[in-house]
């Protein structure tokens, strides 16, 4: 069902970026623990925000301040835009480059002319799309563990919760990857797919913030994938991980089924 040859070649092509993402996500988690432990940021932030007008305090929210606690900081480390951007790049670049991009370059034509089923190529690419963000997230978990070893005062952090955050993040990234597969199946240009997928992801991201801040549009909350990834709520036990993962997995499955069917039937243009 998978082509090792294809996986190996594609993995090799993105290896440097993956290592960079792994180190970045990992060191970012260490940095977050360092910041919270070495400077009493929680206290400073609470004093700082108490001077703000009530509307502004509401704008930032308790969640924002809570992230300067040790567990909050860890959760924030897995929800920081830098981490999300790097993982989203992995999720988007694989299908955009290797489906639409290779159609554009003419190399998919050569691959499809060889004795290999299209579904096998698609599935192999998806396996890689599953593994690469997971490797970067393992980098994050490793960073948190290293940070806990460096700072003994963080040793009572609930690592199970951190593991759950990572799994939830992984599913979020796979959902982004799922709709990028879908866009790739219906497009002939890698750059266009990248732009579309990045645009949709940014839209979901800002919609998530908008529904939090503006109660009049809170009914839109279920329609952004970022609603199903709330690391702070996982730490505080307010979010149902199973429900979040279930919804993201269901969405991903739907996107992939449509994408794979399309790829299997589509004309490969010259």
């Amino acid at each position, binding site marked *: 069902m998978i082509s090792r*040859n294809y996986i190996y*070649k594609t993995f090799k092509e993105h290896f440097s970026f993956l290592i960079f993402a792994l180190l970045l996500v990992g060191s970012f988690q260490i940095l977050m623990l360092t910041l919270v432990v070495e400077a009493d940021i929680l206290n400073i932030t609470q004093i700082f925000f108490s001077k703000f007008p009530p509307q502004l305090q509401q704008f930032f929210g308790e969640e924002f301040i809570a992230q300067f606690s040790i567990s909050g900081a860890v959760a924030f480390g897995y929800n920081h835009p830098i981490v999300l951007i790097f993982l989203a790049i992995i999720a988007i670049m694989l299908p955009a480059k290797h489906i639409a991009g290779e159609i554009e370059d003419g190399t998919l034509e050569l691959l499809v*002319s060889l004795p290999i*089923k299209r579904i096998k190529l698609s599935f192999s690419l998806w396996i890689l799309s599953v593994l690469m963000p997971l490797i970067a997230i393992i980098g994050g978990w490793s960073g948190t563990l290293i940070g806990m070893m460096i700072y003994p005062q963080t040793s009572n952090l609930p690592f199970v919760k951190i593991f759950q955050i990572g799994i939830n993040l992984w599913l979020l990234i796979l959902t982004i990857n799922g709709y990028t597969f879908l866009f790739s199946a219906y497009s002939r240009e890698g750059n266009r797919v990248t732009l579309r997928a990045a645009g949709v992801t940014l839209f979901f991201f800002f919609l998530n913030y908008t529904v939090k801040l503006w109660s009049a549009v809170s009914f839109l909350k279920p329609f952004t994938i970022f609603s199903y990834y709330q690391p702070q709520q996982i730490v505080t036990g307010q979010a149902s991980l199973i429900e979040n993962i279930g919804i993201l997995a269901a969405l991903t499955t739907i996107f992939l089924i449509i994408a794979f069917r399309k790829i299997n039937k589509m*004309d490969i243009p010259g």
Partner: protein
Amino acid sequence: MAVILVSGLTKYYGKTRGIEDVTFSVEQGEIFGFLGPNGAGKTTTIRLLMDLLRPDQGSITLFGKELKINQVDLKERIGYLPGDFLPYNEMTAANFLQYMAKYRSRPPELRQHLLDKLNLSLREFSQKIKHLSHGTRQKLGIVFALEHNPDLAILDEPTSGLDPLVQEAFYEILWDFRRRGKTIFLSSHILPEVEKVCHRVAIIRAGKIVALEEIEKLKAKRPRRLVLSLKNKVVEKPPELPEARLLKSSDNRCIYLVEGSISKILPILIKLPIEDIVFSEPDLEDIFLDYYSEAEH
């Protein structure tokens, strides 16, 4: 046995015509030419044969098996060179061949022979593909298509970008393949090339096959050009010849298109005051243009 059997093949791109009701067969050991100008439907037909496009109607059978159901098994026996051969630019030629060969179960037994024959140097072979010239890339494409000794080679404009010497070497490779019982389906718009290497040819125009013949029969069937130079000036009435069409007359020169047997013309020619006579075999270009002008009328 028919290696390729195409029946009623139709493909539309939205509302735009690709090909319509294309039917032909190619026998084992044949070098089959597929002729037509750009946009006639050559590449569409080839891409359908390679399962890159899905037909709207019709069927394709290769080696007696339906392509739709047996793609993987059949592709194992096929070598394909696309019209625009675009390999991975960042790979070296050597790595590219090595990578692609891993998808096939047949070993690349002819690689070295083809590299030698096409004069692909070791330096070129170890260079990144993006640094290779168009001609060298095309040579690489030929090696890619034929190195696993396929039973059927489907080649879309294979000599594009090759210099005449390499073209000759390529024709030798094709003849060698044919001698070993392999089948070659070759599309081209270069008429002398098809004339030189193919046994049978299909001419496609506006998505439809307008001729399907052995090259020799096609030539025999088609009109020949007769140029008469008379001793006297042709005044008003050039001589009438049976089964020949007068194309042009000026001064003492008449040009005919002879569509029938020469035997009916000879007795008349003997009686005419002829200074010179040129009776030329049609080349494929004449035939090709004739088919096209006929179809347009």
